[in-house]
């Protein structure tokens, strides 16, 4: 079975890259709609409807990237999938219940009798919060090597808060783009209030990561490897400065540049994620299992890859189509 070169080398790498891209797309796309949910208590009833309208056509497809990411982990690296998910049993369960609550709340809040609506609004907020916090917690635990010690849990609680605030930040930048007038001005305020979460989150993980293992430490601080990494912190710093200067002056006349904070926030996520991927490669379970050890049989990976090469561009295509159809300011999106 000789494909191009050694399939036990390049197939795991390709699948790790695919999985990485899926996770990245997920945290950006579902990040903004989770963030919108986290911001719910700060909005009045009309604004809540408008905020839902800004994510209504998208959230379901956004969440599918999570299914794809976990699916790829499951199918390409089955033993890592088992190791990671059993170690994170409880936060995973909390995240799932959160996802259930917020997912159904989209429908129920509009279809249930009016007196019940605030209950479903609360469910939407609670579900979004549970999901964000547990994802942040899992991120922290993952970085620390999935060991349940007191110090690691403490760190994970910090990353839980930071990621949640970070999501609310990218959610706010989405609302800036999709709304106007009072709500937009409010969202500018939320973005200014939330940017610290993202900065501290990236900072905390950047500080902790090199101390998890000497391998990563060397990757970061020894010459010439340090050079490969150096563009990331510089770029991140510039992005934060640009974001802050924009947010201070927003909104611009005639709604100019309303898309730019979201774009900058996205770029910031990409750099942060790039740094993490660079640090942890080639491990899929930090410092325990590499992607090459955990990979499924090449013949199985190959048959998935064939499908992926055909289907993934198609998915990208109609995802873009959907964002194009629902571009512009969010208007009344009547669910009821």
């Amino acid at each position, binding site marked *: 079975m000789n494909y191009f070169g050694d399939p036990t080398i390049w197939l795991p790498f390709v699948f790790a890259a695919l999985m990485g891209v899926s996770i990245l797309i997920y945290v950006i796309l579902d990040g903004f709609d989770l963030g919108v949910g986290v911001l719910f208590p700060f909005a009045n009833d009309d604004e809540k409807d408008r905020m839902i309208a800004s994510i*209504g*056509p998208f959230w379901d*497809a956004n*969440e*599918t990237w999570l*299914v*794809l990411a*976990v*699916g*790829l*982990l*499951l*199918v*390409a690296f*089955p*033993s890592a*999938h*088992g*190791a990671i*998910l*059993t170690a*994170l*049993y*409880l936060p*995973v*369960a909390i995240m*799932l*219940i959160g*996802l*259930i609550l917020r*997912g*159904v709340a989209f*429908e*129920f809040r509009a*279809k*249930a*009798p009016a007196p019940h609506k605030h209950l479903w609004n609360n469910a939407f907020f609670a579900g979004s919060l549970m999901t964000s916090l547990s994802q942040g917690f899992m991120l922290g635990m993952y970085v620390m090597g999935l060991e349940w010690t007191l110090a690691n849990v403490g760190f994970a609680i910090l990353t839980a808060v930071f990621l949640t605030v970070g999501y609310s930040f990218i959610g706010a930048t989405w609302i800036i783009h999709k709304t106007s007038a009072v709500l937009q001005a409010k969202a500018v305020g939320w973005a200014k209030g939330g940017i610290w979460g993202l900065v501290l989150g990236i900072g905390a993980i950047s500080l902790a990561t090199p101390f998890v293992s000497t391998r990563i430490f060397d990757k970061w601080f020894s010459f010439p490897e340090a050079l490969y990494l150096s563009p990331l912190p510089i770029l991140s710093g510039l992005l934060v400065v640009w974001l802050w200067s924009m947010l201070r002056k927003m909104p611009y006349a005639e709604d100019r540049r309303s898309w730019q904070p979201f774009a900058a926030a996205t770029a910031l996520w990409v750099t942060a994620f790039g740094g993490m991927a660079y640090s942890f490669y080639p491990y899929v379970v930090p410092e325990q299992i590499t992607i090459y050890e955990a990979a*499924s*049989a090449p*013949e*199985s990976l190959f048959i*998935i890859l064939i*499908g*992926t090469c055909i*289907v*993934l561009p198609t998915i990208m295509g*109609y*995802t873009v*189509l*959907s964002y194009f*159809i*629902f*571009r*512009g*300011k969010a208007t*009344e*999106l*009547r*669910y*009821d």
Partner: protein
Amino acid sequence: MELETLLLSRIQFAANISFHILFPTITIALGWVLLFFKLRYNRTGEERWMEAYRFWVKIFALSFAMGVVSGITMSFQFGTNWPGFMEKVGNIAGPLLAYEIMTAFFLEAVFLGIMLFGFSRVPNWVHTLATFLVAFGTMMSAFWIIVLNSWMHTPQGFEMIDGVAHATDWSAIIFNPSMPYRFTHMVLASFLTVSFLIAGVSAFRWLIGGRTEGVRVAMKTAIIAAAVLIPVQILVGDFHGLNTKEYQPAKVAAMEGNWETSTGVPLILFAIPDEEARENRFEIGIPKLASFILTHDWNGEVQGLNDFVTEDGEVLHPRVSPVFWSFRVMVGTGLLMLLVSWSATYMIMRRKRGVEGLPKPMLYALIGMSFSGWLATLAGWYTTEIGRQPWLVQGVMTTKEAVADVPAPLVLSTLIAYLLVYAGLLLAYVFVIFYLARKTARGESIGTTIAPSPAAVPKAMPAE
């Protein structure tokens, strides 16, 4: 301790998958029914088809959301509770699941947005196409999952290397022996579930005064569809049973409550299987009928459960009572469906009176049958899934081998949490369906999900 974890994990997965399947069972067929309404509207221009579409697309959206979120839960539970499954047969299950996600999930999720909210933003044909793609996506999703599930019942096309399954023949894996039967059986189950749901909810709206053209046309379509499909389903079920007898005789023996291999076996209508004594109590049966159904010969030989106990006493057949009873619940519900749908169709056809010809008791019967499809579908799945035990993949790995070593109290706590959430959501779901029905019957608008007022369309939208 280990046993408790196994039992609790099984209950948790069963609870999850039972809750989940309720909603795909509705969306698989409802998508096509909506496409039918839409196409009728496109063809005739009659508002009543659009009225039916507008009501049922809301139920579709609600069911879809319930299905999505409960489905995500399951993809994670493979890892949190059943890591052994993917470690052993991941090379086969993996690609099938991957194809489901890639060919179905994204298609459904993206075009659902356009189907629900895009009516005023895209040309009519794009909206119809979106409806089609969503229906097609749900069907594809069902296909891949049934392929995997069927493979777990009738595995082939693989070889074991160092205790791990490796695929050797993908077409043999996909078109494994039980797949065509199971897929047809499930799709028909979905159409029957939706038919009875539409008939029941429409009967409810009709009774409380919502006698619009849209209700009329939906109810008639649903009743006739049910009457046509139920005999087909009974026939397909019979074929499926024969297929099971060939590949999983232990399951059929449990379904029939047949302990001893013999000829001229009676069809047992009622019995209380006693697992300890390995015999039936209070048995009532029709002589020789089981032999006739299973072998098409009155004196045919049928294998009994006692053949599936090894010499050292290991039991390789499922517990009998759950399989025996869920099979009877499924068949009983099916027969009731036949009775109700045929009498309702007769009343509609008689003197061409349409749904006006349905007397009150019939309407009540239809309301009572609203969720009969759920009952039959769940009972059917319990029959086939419990019937495969103690195997997870028939003859390849047992359920016990796959379970994660998670502490039992932890599994118990998440199980309780899931059960509470599911119970609450199920109540809310049924409540909201009937709330929407009452609201429309009162003549109130239930919104304009697919056709927002022109004023709501902003300047930024493209000129159409």
